[in-house]
């Protein structure tokens, strides 16, 4: 199989309309997958009391519609801390995601299109690295960071996020098929340097995979919890996951402290998932084909 055949559009002629069971199955699936999100939206419109003992039950609205007040409270609580977290998440995800993608594209192309001593061995190591549990890395990474005076800075989150072995794997697999050696050779014969060839010939051909890897890396960094939790101690630097996790712990500890944290957690969760959902929905045509890349080899 090649990348080309995988995603090639094909005409679907005369499919029967007798698909009622199939559609019922789909609707059931959609209901299951969307139910928690519906709950999240409904819960975001409730005040603290309604959240725990609302009149309409868990999946329907309470008497008063509190969404706007909840959002206002969320955005002003502790001087707009939440918005700051949102901004941090975006910064880490974009910088870390773009960086990881650039590294992965370069390395994937290098692995796919050059033969050199130690290539297969390095690649095997790279694949094996996926099996390493993250907990093994946190303490040494922390020590490394603190020796470089990077703990509690944005670099402590961004630099390790540049590492995306899976991205390299995807890029290698894709580049191997999508970038024909003949084209590269032709470019070289024309006197184009290796890097010029890479930018002019290879990168445009690898574009679908690049978008996919970019999305995967951005999502990976956006969703990251463990690493920022370990390396950051200033809450002004927290990403949204660590911030909300912290609120959850605060709400559950004995120091509730006057605010209705649970409503903030719920509405904060709602707002925080919107950007990525929008990103995925609007970019769907790019990633849908790309996600199957890894399955080629």
């Amino acid at each position: 199989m090649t990348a080309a055949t995988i995603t090639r559009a094909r005409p679907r002629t005369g499919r029967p309309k007798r698909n009622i069971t199939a559609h019922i199955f789909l609707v059931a699936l959609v209901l299951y997958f969307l139910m928690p999100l519906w709950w999240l939206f409904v819960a975001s419109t409730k005040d603290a009391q309604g959240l725990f003992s609302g009149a309409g039950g868990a999946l329907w609205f309470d008497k008063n519609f509190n969404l706007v007040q909840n959002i206002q409270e969320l955005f002003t609580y502790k001087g707009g801390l939440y918005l700051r977290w949102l901004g941090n998440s975006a910064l880490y995800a974009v910088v870390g995601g773009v960086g990881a993608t650039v590294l992965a594209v370069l390395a994937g192309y290098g692995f796919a299109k050059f033969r050199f001593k130690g290539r297969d061995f390095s690649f095997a190591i790279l694949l094996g690295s996926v099996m390493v549990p993250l907990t093994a890395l946190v303490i040494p990474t922390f020590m490394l960071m603190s020796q470089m005076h990077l703990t509690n800075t944005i670099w402590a989150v961004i630099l390790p996020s540049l590492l995306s072995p899976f991205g390299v794997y995807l890029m290698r697999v894709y580049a191997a098929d999508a970038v024909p050696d003949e084209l590269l050779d032709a470019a070289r014969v024309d006197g184009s340097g290796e890097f010029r060839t890479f930018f002019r010939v290879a990168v445009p051909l690898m574009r679908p995979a690049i978008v996919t890897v970019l999305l995967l890396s951005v999502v990976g960094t956006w969703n990251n919890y463990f690493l920022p939790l370990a390396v950051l101690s200033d809450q002004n630097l927290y990403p949204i996951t660590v911030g909300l996790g912290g609120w959850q712990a605060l709400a559950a500890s004995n120091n509730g402290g006057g605010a209705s944290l649970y409503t903030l957690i719920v509405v904060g969760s709602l707002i925080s998932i919107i950007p990525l959902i929008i990103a995925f929905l609007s970019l769907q045509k790019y990633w849908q084909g790309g996600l199957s890349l890894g399955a080629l080899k």
Partner: protein
Amino acid sequence: MNKKTLVAAVSTGALLLGLTACSADGSTSGAGSTAAADATSCSNTIVYPDAPKVSVWAWYPNINTVVDLFNKAHKDVQVCWSNAGQGGDEYAKFSTAIAAGTGAPDVIMLEDEVLPGFELQKALVDLTKYGSDDVKANFSSGAWKDVSSGSSVYAIPVDGGPMAMIYRKDIFTKYGITIPTTWAEYEAAAVKLKAAGGPFMGDFGSNVPAWFTALMTQNGQTAWKYDNSSPQSIGIALNDAGSKEVATYWQGLISQGLVDTKDQFNTDYVGGMASGKYATYISAAWAPGYLSGNGGAATGPGAEWAVAPLPQWDTSKPVSVNWGGSTLAVTTQAKDPALATTVAKELYASDAELKDGVDTQTIFPLSKSVLDAEWFASTPVAFFNGQKANGEVYIPAENAYKGYTYSPFTTYYYSELTKAMVTIIKQTSTGEKALDDLQSTMSTYAKAQGFTVQ
């Protein structure tokens, strides 16, 4: 179009690579150019930028206010505060920083129960060298014992949790329950409630091992013999007759269906409190703040809360116990331990700072300047419909508290005790056997960690 975006993306990437390379270079060369990238950066504003700064990790909800008050009042020192997480999260970060030898703050908020563990790792400074005795008189002897080990003092107490029984007055009235003063009366009331089709009397949650420890301590358990004069030696006594009586008692309540077995401190439990699922909440002085703090979630429609002293095993010899409580300790990574000790002593010490903690119901202060103050004793507590809860219940409980000796592996003990509590809840073990097993587990663990078990 597409080519343009690509070029843009790639050049951004290249720029980025340059940036990261720069910062990596800058740091490995060890040049102190990145002064901003210090161990901590402040979440508060510094009022006097020229004064030396002391970094503080703390998670008190009203700490912003307190730090601002402190900084305005201190021209000679400024607190640089950050919230490194709540309880376990903060300890995890502190542990990592200890292992790394760098990254810890100067002053750190710790709960009493984890102090000996960090002492053993030589992570905390003995404050007696820096004049901690100056403030000893400000605290009850019990509170001071909680932060002491042998002749050393490892933290300054801030807030405490003298225990009492919160109850639903409306439920008590409805079912004709009188306030129980002994555990036998508590059980009798529970039986009466159940017979009348009423709610649970209370709750035995497996996630509150500290609570269960306090209740066993109330009946004479002296779990640990430990102090830093011989840190390699420990005494463990978890299965004495008194402890077993407590375990058997609660197992009895559970097996009769008189109390619930839900985990506490979560939405479900708070929701249960609001909806009148429980008639009492055996809890500590911070509980009213906790319950009203969740946006009034637990105040529920028609709920009338009140508080009474903790039921006793023997009313002729009442015992006061404590659940929870936090302190400010100075870490061995502090750049200026003397200055850090000053902060530990004086943060949450001025009247204004303490009063804010009381007013926002975020702490139950241990400072005698509050405990002995008339305004504190006579403040009507809104959560209890105006009952003067501090003066009637909590202050006497705190003053009668004798202190507790913690082990240097409290988190491990709590995780094992939780397992024991689960076996009690699921009736897979008797209360007695659960404690016998716990005793042997903890002895084995202590030996494996290199302690001599007495």
